[in-house]
C-alpha cells in the first residue's frame, strides 16, 4: 500500500509550489504598479521580498530531492516531482524580472514617466492573465487553458515588437537626453515582460507534461498543421 508519509511529503511540496506561484504573481503585479506611479518604496520592497522567493525555490528543491531519494517515484509521481523543480525555477526567474523592473523604478526615483504606459500596460495585462490561468490550471488541473497561454504569449510578442518600433521612433524624435534614457529603460521593461511571458509558457508546458506526459509545444504544432490542411 502507498505509505501515508509519502502522501504527506507530496502535499507539502504541492503547498509550497502554490504559495510560491501566488507570491510571484504579486511581485509582478506590484512591479508594474510601482512603475506606473514611480513608487520608490514599493520598488525597494519588491527587491527585498525577492529573498523570500529564493527561499521558496530552495525549499522546494530540497524537499523534492529528498522525496526522490526516499521514494524513488515512478510514472505520474516521477513526472510530477521533476516538473515541480522546473516550475519553481521558472517562477524564480519571473520574480527576478519583477526585480529588474523594480530597479528601473528605483533608478528613476522622483521622475515622471515620459508618457503614460499604454502598451506596456497591455503587455502586463496579458502577463497577469496568463499567471492567473497557470494558477487555475494548477489548482483545477484544467489543461485547456495551457494552450490559451501559448496563444496569449504570441500576442505579447506582437505588442513587444510594436513597442520596440514605437520607442525607436520616440528616441529619434526626442532631444532631451534624460527622456531618451527613460525610453530606453521602458524598452527594457517591455523586454522583461516579454521574458516573463516565455517563462509562463514554460510553466504551462511543464503543467501539461506533468498531467499528460506529452510535450505541449509539439501538440500545438500538430494542431496548427492539421488546421492548415
Amino acid at each position, binding site marked *: *500500500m*502507498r*505509505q501515508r508519509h*509519502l502522501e504527506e511529503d507530496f502535499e507539502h511540496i504541492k503547498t509550497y509550489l502554490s504559495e510560491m506561484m501566488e507570491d510571484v504573481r504579486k511581485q509582478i503585479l506590484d512591479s508594474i504598479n510601482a512603475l506606473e506611479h514611480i513608487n520608490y518604496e514599493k520598488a525597494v520592497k519588491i527587491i527585498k521580498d525577492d529573498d523570500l522567493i529564493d527561499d521558496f525555490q530552495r525549499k522546494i528543491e530540497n524537499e523534492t530531492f529528498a522525496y526522490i531519494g526516499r521514494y*524513488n*517515484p*515512478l*510514472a*505520474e*509521481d*516521477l*513526472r510530477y516531482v521533476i516538473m515541480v523543480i522546473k516550475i519553481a525555477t521558472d517562477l524564480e526567474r519571473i520574480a527576478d524580472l519583477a526585480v529588474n523592473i523594480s530597479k528601473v523604478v528605483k533608478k528613476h526615483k522622483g521622475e515622471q514617466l515620459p508618457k503614460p504606459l499604454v502598451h506596456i500596460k497591455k503587455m502586463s495585462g496579458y502577463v497577469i492573465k496568463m499567471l492567473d490561468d497557470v494558477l487555475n490550471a494548477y489548482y483545477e488541473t484544467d489543461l485547456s487553458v495551457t494552450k490559451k497561454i501559448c496563444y496569449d504569449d504570441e500576442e505579447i510578442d506582437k505588442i513587444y515588437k510594436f513597442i520596440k518600433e514605437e520607442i525607436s521612433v520616440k528616441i529619434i524624435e526626442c532631444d532631451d537626453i534624460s527622456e531618451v534614457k527613460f525610453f530606453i529603460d521602458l524598452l527594457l521593461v517591455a523586454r522583461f515582460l516579454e521574458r516573463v511571458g516565455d517563462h509562463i509558457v514554460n510553466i504551462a508546458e511543464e503543467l501539461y507534461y506533468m498531467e499528460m*506526459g506529452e510535450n505541449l509545444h509539439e501538440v500545438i504544432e500538430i494542431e496548427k498543421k492539421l488546421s492548415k490542411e
Partner: protein
Amino acid sequence: MENIIFEIKKLNFYYGSNHILKDVECGIQKNKVTAIVGPSGCGKTTFLRTLNRMSDLAPTANYTGKIFLDGENILDQDPIKVREKVGMVFQQPNPFPKSIRNNLTYGPKLHGEKNKKVLDEIVESSLKQAALWDEVKDNLKKSGMALSGGQQQRLCIARALSVKPEVLLLDEPTSALDPIATSKIEELVEELSKNYTIIIVTHNLQQALRISDYMMFFYLGELVEFDRTEKMATKPSDKRTNDYLRGIFS
C-alpha cells in the same frame, strides 16, 4: 517488428477451472532484457514457465494459444527440446549436490557430449560468462553447495548457459540474495543480454528499471501493458500500470 524471438498468440492458461493467463499476446525482443512485474498471484511465474514448457507439468494445467520461438510453436514441440533453447534459473539457488564441474557438464553430457576437452571448454566459458570463473577456477572439484548464495546463483546461471540456450528465464533470481550479490547478478544480466534473450520476473521495481529494456505489467492474469522501460517508468498508458508503479496497490 524488428527482432522478435518469442511471438505469443492468444495464450490462455488454466489450473483446473482457474483461468490464470487471459488472452496474452506479445512479441519479445531478441537479445534484450524483458522484465515482468505485477502483484503477487497475477500469473508472472506461470507465464514465464510456459515459455519453456514447465507450467504444463502440473496435472491440472491446461492451455490454448500459440507460442512461437524462432517461428515454431513450442506448444507442439517436445518440452525437452524447448528447454535446450530456453534455460531457467529459479528464486532459490539450486545447484546439484555435486562438484562445480559436474554441475556444468551434466547438461552437455545429457545431450551426448563426451569429449573431455570440449567439456572443459564448456565449463570454463560458462563460468566466465557467469562471472564466476575467477572465484572458482582453482577449486572446480568443490561441491556447488559449498559456495555462497550469490555464487550458487551464478553457478545456476552458468549451468543454464552450459547447454548454449538462446533464452534465459529468471524467476526472482535475487530475492534470496544480499545487495552485493544482487548487484553482481544485475551486472551479469546486462552483460549476458548481448548474447542472450533474458526474461526476468522481479518484485523489485527498481531492479526492473535498472536492468530491463522492456517491461511487462501483468494484472489478474492479463498483460495490461508492455513497452520500453523508460516509457513505462515515466508515462505508462494504462491507469492500472500507473497506479501499480506509484505503489497505490502492490
